[in-house]
């Protein structure tokens, strides 16, 4: 685990998961590896937060699950975005961009 990893900011986990699943469907740990990759190790999502979040988002209708085979040839549960999930990703992305833009501007002055 890299020493410069940060604790997750409130509200960012859902957005990161949606983003990670934007291109392809992934299984649970695949999602956490993709987030690690996307943020270059800045955010580490622990399984203890990841799986509850995946199940919550599945219940909300953002994610759809199906069974597939993992890279180690084991039966694994894969998650993919639903239509509402994609809409949610767009909404959340827009919101986050406004927040980070405003923060960057505030800190630049």
């Amino acid at each position, binding site marked *: 685990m890299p020493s410069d990893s940060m604790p997750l900011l409130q509200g960012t986990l859902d957005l990161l998961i949606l983003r990670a699943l934007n291109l392809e469907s992934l299984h649970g740990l695949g999602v956490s590896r993709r987030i690690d990759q996307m943020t270059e190790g800045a955010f580490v999502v622990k399984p203890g937060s990841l*799986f509850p979040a995946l199940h*919550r988002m599945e*219940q909300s209708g953002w994610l759809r699950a199906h069974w597939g085979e993992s890279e180690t040839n084991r039966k694994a*549960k894969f998650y993919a975005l639903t239509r509402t999930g994609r809409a949610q990703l767009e909404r959340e992305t827009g919101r986050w961009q406004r927040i980070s833009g405003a923060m960057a501007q505030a800190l630049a002055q």
Partner: protein
Amino acid sequence: MKKRRELRDELNAFDPKELGIAGDRERIEERVTDVWRGASLRTLLQDFRHAARLLRRTPGVTVVVVLSLALGIGANAAIFSLLDAVLLRTLPVPQPQQLSLLCASDGLHPDLNLFSYPVVQQFEQRAAGVPLGAYNSTTPVPMDNGTGPTAPVDLELVSGGYFPTLELTPQRGRWINDDDNRAMGVSQVAVISDAFWHRQFGGAADVLGQTVSLRGHPLAIVGIAPPGCSGLDPAQPAEVWAPLMLQAELKVHGNLSNDNGDESKPWPGQEQMMWLSVVARVPDGQTPARLAAALTPILHASLLRLQASPTMHVVARAGDRGSDGLRRQYASPLIALFILVGLLLAIAVANVAMLLLARMVTRRREIAIRLALGISRGRLVAQLVVEGLLLALLSGAAAALAAYWGSRLLPHLAASASGAAPFTASLDARVWLLLAGLSLGIGLIVGLLPVRQARRLDLTHCLKADDRTAFGGARAQGRWLVAAQVALALVLVAGAGLFSRNLASMFHNDLGFDRIHTLTVRLSVADSALTPDQWTALEPRLQQQVASVPGVLDAALAGSGIEAGSTSTSGISLYGHVDPPGGLESEEVQVSGGYFRTVGMRLLRGRDFDAADAPHTTQVVVVNRAFARRFYAGANPIGHTFGYDAKSAGDFHIVGIVADARFQDPHLAPNPIFYRLLSQSSNAPGVVEVRAAGDPAPLLNAVQAAIRGVDSRLRVRDARTVEWYVDRFLVRDQLVAKLSAGFGLLALALACLGLYGVITYSVNSRAIEFGLRMALGSARAGVLRLVLGEAALTVGIGLVLGLPLTLLAANAARPLLGGLNAASWLAVPSTILTAAAVLLALTLLAALRPALRATRVDPARSLRAD
């Protein structure tokens, strides 16, 4: 648990190390489960909120649904509580099914007879291994608490075996035992009930050893019965128990059949005094019938000693629920009421189903849209069921209130001017269970009913502009529901009419005597205070004094009160006839001159007693019509003679015939009676009958004062109007009449509401058709005829279905309609037809409003609307 297995599979896909250190896995599983739980709870709450919103949006429908279900369910629970209290509840003793009640019966008459104490003692010896206990009927006895007399307490005298037979343990102290019953009047002890302990002594711990003073005899309290124990007759709970041997001291009278015994001497020693009931605990494996057969020879031997014919034998009846006097009297009326109230609930449920179906139609759009948006049918069903359950919850709560008030009101309805109700109804666990079960069941039914509709829902059809036919089936269904409702309502409305008319005819039936203007004063004379000679001297003065009270027209003396009928039955032998086997029996009443005039009994033939009939002239009797019919086969009996036995068959000369008087229960047919003069018999009068010019009630005090003024040794036991006694026998009919009238009105209201709803819905959904018809030139009157015609057809089908049902019900209720059947054979059919006419008229009136609205449909608007 499929979800949990899937979660395991999901996590198994990974190297345990990747999921963190050992133990983390469980934490993950736990947190995911929390997420699921939160979600399902949220959905349920959402469904409830959604349902509540929907119910609020149509407050009229909701209120009508909740009210009709609450009334239906509440009334059922209340009637059931009565049924439970009177018919079903077993005695609070261990293994009540082992208890048997022993009586003497001749196998012909329903009346059951009692035993003398000497016979009971022999029973106890013979029935080795079977515990037996004897008790008398509960009697009110005046109590003196030191500061003066208080309200009488209900006393039961018991043998030493009574409590051990019930296998109860006193909560304090001991029971009355065999030692208390060794000698007459010696052991002055009492056991008190839990209720009496709390009422009289405030539940004080040191009550044992204190005394309770009955008729001036201080009885030492030796034990307290456990809560709920009040003897064997639920209709007459006992408060105090004392040994049988105190009968003379406490002057306990109660039920008695006296075969030439001396009432003023202690009863327990006399074989002639039959006054005790017997309870036995028959161990499993033995049969009550065999016990009864084993004891019968003892009874026969006793009857032979008394020179009576041994026609009676011992019978054993189930004792698990105590004495069955109340059950026998109320079983059929209560079952009838329970059926009626069940029908009422069915009508209410049909109404609710119709309302919800109709509402479903107005919601078809909403449901179709939600289905289109991808809500699963499972979720939709769950929502509809939650809606039904919410309605059930509201109705159940309202029904609980209705049941509570109902169960408190019912005993009052059964009470009359003559005193408290013979039972109390309480809501126990079983009643609540019934209430909850009914509410839940009905909630599920009404919740699932629209589900069938939703299943059949044709999506594309629904969303199309002309969607009025998507629920075409609902209209036909509503029709049939209304027809069924009308059929059931006819049973209820006709029932109300029949029972009310029955009561009215009972009130107006000719009882054979004047019950409106007659007072009965029962005398109580100190033991042997007056000799027969003194009585003979006193009687004319007594009669005169009472007759001279202002407002009194006539007074007469009699051995027994007219309200009680006769208290003695005698074997008789007709002159010139051979006695049939078993002999003839007739009731006997001794009266003074002027008796028939006083009580308003009509003389049909011959003559009344007159002044020439003196103590030593020819013994004359007047017989009633039943006597003449039974013994002389309708031939004129005047001039014939009879006597108590073949030797004396020439003693009594019949001089007149009077009309039959149905003294006691007006439901019963008259018995043969002969009347003798008090002056020609050795008996003393027991009552003074008084005929008032107007309302007799205000004369009660003046008459009592006049009696006391004649001789200080005369006391009045009680004085009441005869109406009071007649009332008491009609309590049952009153209860049934009042309740069935209430149910009938409710049924009528619900049926009208049902038809109104269905016609309204039908008119709304056919607005286009009506618009078209009128646009094409149909007259408004034509549309009105069309709508009303359909309503009449629906009601007509209901009535046709209901008529045979009602006739069946009326036939089943025949035993309860005695007065009506006696009045006229036409009474029942005419009442049913009237009920049908009323139902038809009122339901059509209910349909008139929506029908008139149909005629006001604006063709232009209805054709354009979506």
